[in-house]
């Protein structure tokens, strides 16, 4: 990415365009689930990603600080529930990450051919 314009440089290696916040297995998983589900509950994320509550909370904090998700706490009866929703920036970051991964794979395959 060029520092001046923010427009990706086509000649740059795809790795340079990867967002370190998103480019992490668990955080990418959280964004994927939230994108596909419209919104996802904390317990569902924990089960699907096979994480402890503390570990998941840390990853959610990172994503929330980066403005990629919104965390909403509510109740279902007497039970507290935490819902995670993807922001517009989060949706764009996920799309960009997937694009970069595809480019990276294509690049590796071109070099290997």
């Amino acid at each position, binding site marked *: 990415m060029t520092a001046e314009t923010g427009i990706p440089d086509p000649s740059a*290696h795809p*790795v340079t365009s*990867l967002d*370190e916040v998103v*480019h*992490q*297995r668990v955080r*990418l*998983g959280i964004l*994927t*689930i939230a*994108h*596909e*589900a*419209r*919104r*996802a*509950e*904390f*317990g*569902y*994320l924990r089960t*699907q990603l096979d994480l402890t509550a503390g570990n998941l909370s840390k990853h959610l904090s990172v994503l929330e600080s980066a403005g990629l998700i919104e965390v909403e706490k509510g109740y*279902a009866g007497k039970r507290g529930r935490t819902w995670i929703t993807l922001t517009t920036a989060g949706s764009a970051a996920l799309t960009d990450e*997937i694009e970069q*991964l*595809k480019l*990276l*794979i294509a690049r*590796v395959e071109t070099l290997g051919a």
Partner: protein
Amino acid sequence: MTTDSLPVGGDPRQLLSDVRTLAHRVRLDQRVTWVALLVLAAVTFIAIPIDWYGLDVHCAPGASTQLVQEADASVCTVWRRGVLLYWPAALLLAYAAIAVCYVRVARERGLGARVLPYAITGISLTVLFTAAWVAASLYFPDHPQRFPEWVLVLDRLITPWGTIGVALLVLARLERNVALLAFTLGYLAIVLVPPHNFGWGTHWGYQADFVPQQVVNGIVLLLGAIGFAVAHRRRR
């Protein structure tokens, strides 16, 4: 340094594969396809007696008409009053019930739902079918005419049972559900090529004339509901 060019989060192929697997799992957990089909099957079966008793037949020798009785050469006008009285309200209630059910089940599973575009499509098609049938009922009694087969096929698409199929195509797309797509195409084929084409119910009298089609549609939807419910149960 080779490490500079390697991604920090792992093998990109593995990451992409994980993304696809997770997305697929979420879609499976959001589905309650069998509920939608069961509600639509119930609506279709309930329509049969209403259509039966709501059929309005007027026969008069030489009157202008839609159907001709061969036996006595009298001419009969058949008006399916029950269809207009029952189906618009029934379909609106059905789509509302399906949407509420999808949202509640998804919420219980810890997810959001994707059913809104389906419900909106279903409701829009219901409004379209109602408008088309009201227009037809006002226009055709005074302007009887014979239509080519392709117009009749198009007409079957905006019947209540036709709109059910078209809306199910939207649900299949939303859920990226290939099994539902295949089922819906089969259902639409049955709707567009009704049992009359095979000679069933052609000499059963006016009231029974419409029954085979509705029974077949209802059975297909019910079997679909059972099939999707069994598949869902096995997966969980």
